[in-house]
């Protein structure tokens, strides 16, 4: 008869052996990650990685208020991963992508992140969406050592390498975007009285911080709306009463639509400028389309609106990236059409594949974080400006181009401009736009991470 203690001891030994095995499998990948791509056999180098698969997870609002548009992001990423898998995967491994619905509710985000990490045993979190939602799980992911790659939110929270060494931003943060948008507006509308229409949370505050750097002296009023309260008539009335003739909005798509609608009621026609987040032509257009009884036609309400972009737009049919993504969507997509949200998801997936390649043939969690830190700046993809990744910077894409919505598509008003947080100057990006590789899959060499 085996005593309880003996059984426990045996279990402990087995567990430590398993851990040692994992460690042993991991180390060579880091040590010879540099050159030995060809010869090394694939091993189960870390949690979520087997000889033939890599498992990544994500949390997105698939239902609820935030779902329009955002629910399409993971379908885009999924289609791209399926495309990569159909072409042999990454280093022979198929990417298994598991995404779950958090309904944009932080409590549910915590719950499904627990499931993803502890039960599904994902290797990394990819593109978890939303500031309030992802904030709820950042500490958990970092304490578990899970790479928390390319959060789908422009908050500055993801760029804190000391507190959250495993977390990386992806899209340009709201401050960078606000700065570039505001500089353009200050230069081109120097006489304008500026009103800000911002969401009352981190998104609005970060954007306002960037905008104030260039528009401070022109701002006549700041109106904040509370997400969830759809009656924003008083805010729009206040903008009008303050005489604002240029309104800069840091709002989500539903509230962009509501602000246009309320302005219509007041015959209020300022020049509008919206952050990229709330200016998706297709989505806002579809929200406004049914009000066309009367004089508004389709997205006509958005005609002339100034916004920014950091990815190619789905309406740019002659762009090589859009053509690639169209092909991917046609072959591997589900229901619906390719749209900007799916392009966003595919671009994130493209970034992840680059990072996975950079982490070498037998990636580890630690290895992929190091690989993004040292190689991320040089990743080439559909994004218009490079990433700002380094050991002490986890901020995403460095800049945006300012554009204008005309005739149902977007027309660039400026070159791609890049900057950084704080008082960093705004400069043209200086590099030509990248083009996809022949097979549409990144070709990143493993990074020497030392």
């Amino acid at each position, binding site marked *: 008869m085996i005593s309880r203690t003996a059984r426990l001891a045996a279990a402990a030994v087995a567990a430590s052996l398993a851990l040692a095995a994992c460690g042993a499998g991991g180390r060579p990948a880091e040590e010879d990650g540099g050159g030995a791509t060809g010869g090394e056999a694939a091993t189960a180098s870390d949690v979520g990685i087997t000889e033939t698969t890599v498992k990544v997870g994500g949390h997105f609002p698939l239902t609820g208020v935030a779902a329009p548009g955002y629910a399409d992001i993971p379908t885009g990423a999924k289609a791209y991963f399926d495309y990569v898998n159909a072409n042999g995967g990454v280093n022979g491994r198929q990417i298994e992508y598991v995404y779950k619905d958090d309904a944009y509710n932080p409590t549910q985000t915590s719950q499904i992140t627990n499931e993803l990490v502890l039960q599904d045993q994902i290797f990394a979190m990819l593109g978890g969406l939303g500031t309030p939602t992802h904030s709820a799980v950042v500490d958990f992911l970092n304490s578990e050592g899970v790479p928390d790659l390319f959060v789908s939110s422009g908050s500055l929270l993801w760029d804190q390498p000391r507190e959250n060494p495993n977390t990386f931003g992806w899209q340009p943060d709201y401050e960078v975007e606000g700065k570039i948008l505001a500089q353009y507006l200050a230069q081109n509308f120097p006489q304008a009285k500026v009103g800000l229409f911002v969401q009352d949370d981190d998104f609005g505050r970060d954007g306002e911080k960037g905008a104030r750097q260039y528009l401070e002296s022109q701002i006549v009023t700041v109106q904040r709306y509370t997400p969830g309260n759809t*009656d924003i008539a*008083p805010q729009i009335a206040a903008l009008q009463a303050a005489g604002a003739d240029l309104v800069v909005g840091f709002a989500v798509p539903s509230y962009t639509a509501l602000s246009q609608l309320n302005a219509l*009621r007041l015959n209020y026609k300022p020049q509008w400028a919206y952050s990229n987040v709330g200016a998706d032509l297709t989505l806002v257009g579809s929200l406004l389309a049914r009000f066309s009884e009367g004089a508004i036609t389709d997205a006509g309400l958005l005609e002339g609106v100034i916004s920014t972009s950091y990815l190619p737009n789905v309406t740019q049919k002659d762009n090589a990236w859009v053509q690639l993504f169209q092909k991917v969507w046609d072959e591997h997509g589900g229901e619906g059409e390719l749209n900007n949200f799916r392009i966003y998801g595919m671009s994130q997936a493209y970034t992840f594949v680059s990072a996975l390649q950079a982490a070498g043939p037998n990636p580890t969690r630690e290895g992929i974080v190091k690989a993004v830190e040292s190689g991320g700046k040089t990743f080439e993809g559909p994004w218009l400006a490079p990433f700002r990744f380094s050991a002490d910077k986890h901020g995403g894409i460095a800049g945006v181009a300012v554009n204008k919505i005309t005739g149902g598509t977007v027309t660039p008003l400026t070159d791609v401009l890049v900057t950084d947080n704080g008082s960093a100057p705004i400069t043209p990006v200086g590099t030509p736009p990248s083009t996809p590789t022949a097979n549409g899959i990144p070709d990143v060499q493993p990074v020497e991470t030392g």
Partner: protein
Amino acid sequence: MQQFLNVTLTGLAQGAVYSAIALALVLIWRSTRIVNFAQGAMAMFTTYIALSLIEAGQSYWVGLLVALVSGLVLGALVERVVVRPVEGGPELNAVIVTLGLFVGFQALAAILFGSTFVSFPAPFDLRGFTVGGVNIAFTPNSIFVIAAVVVVMLALVALFRFTNLGLQMRASAFSQEVSRLLGVRVGAMLTLGWALAAVVGSLAGVLIAGGNLVSPNYMDAVVVFGFVAAVLGGLESPGGAVVGGLTIGLLLSYVSGYLGSELVALAALVILVAVLLVRPQGLFSHAAARRV
């Protein structure tokens, strides 16, 4: 000045809708002593029915009519099938049942119609009037909203004051046993009360949706503010519900316009608590007199 005018006018139009919801709550409270927490969810559901018809190519008015008729049927069904069995038990049971209905309708709507924001057309122009070069936040559509609520309120007053049916409904609400002895079909009256309330609720749902975005929970805030309005008006009086609704609409609009939109829900709570502390029977109630 212009802002004050616009905040006032948007508050009035918003208040008209709170009035309609408050009216629906009052109708049910008067006849069955139940606060129907599912009122908003039922209205949301019939609004989606209207939207499906409009999307299928029918006119706004067909959609509105069908929404009202389905409200009538839904109200009667809910009373007969769900509420009747728990009536007569502890009062709390019926309230909990309406809460359950609230959750149920929202979930069902999310499954049937999707849970994302969609736009709901308006029957009239959404562009505001311009008076003497000043833009005012009052549109042909807001006139329609206010007129519709006024018509419904007058119709209800007429029904209760001047018709035999209204008298029977009032009687069965006041004293079921006596009414029954006098030959009033109390059960039918209760069902009719719920059905009428659901019609008024459906109207409020369609009115507030017009020219706005709807999702399965778009009525949540409206029904909470409608409840505050009903309490303000005394829960008993249809007139009180209307005045309460307009008051709440105006007050919340001022709070949002001058103090900040994040304070709206809090302000509603403050009003509710203040009313319950200072004048718990509401501004227009005769309940105290009746108890004597």
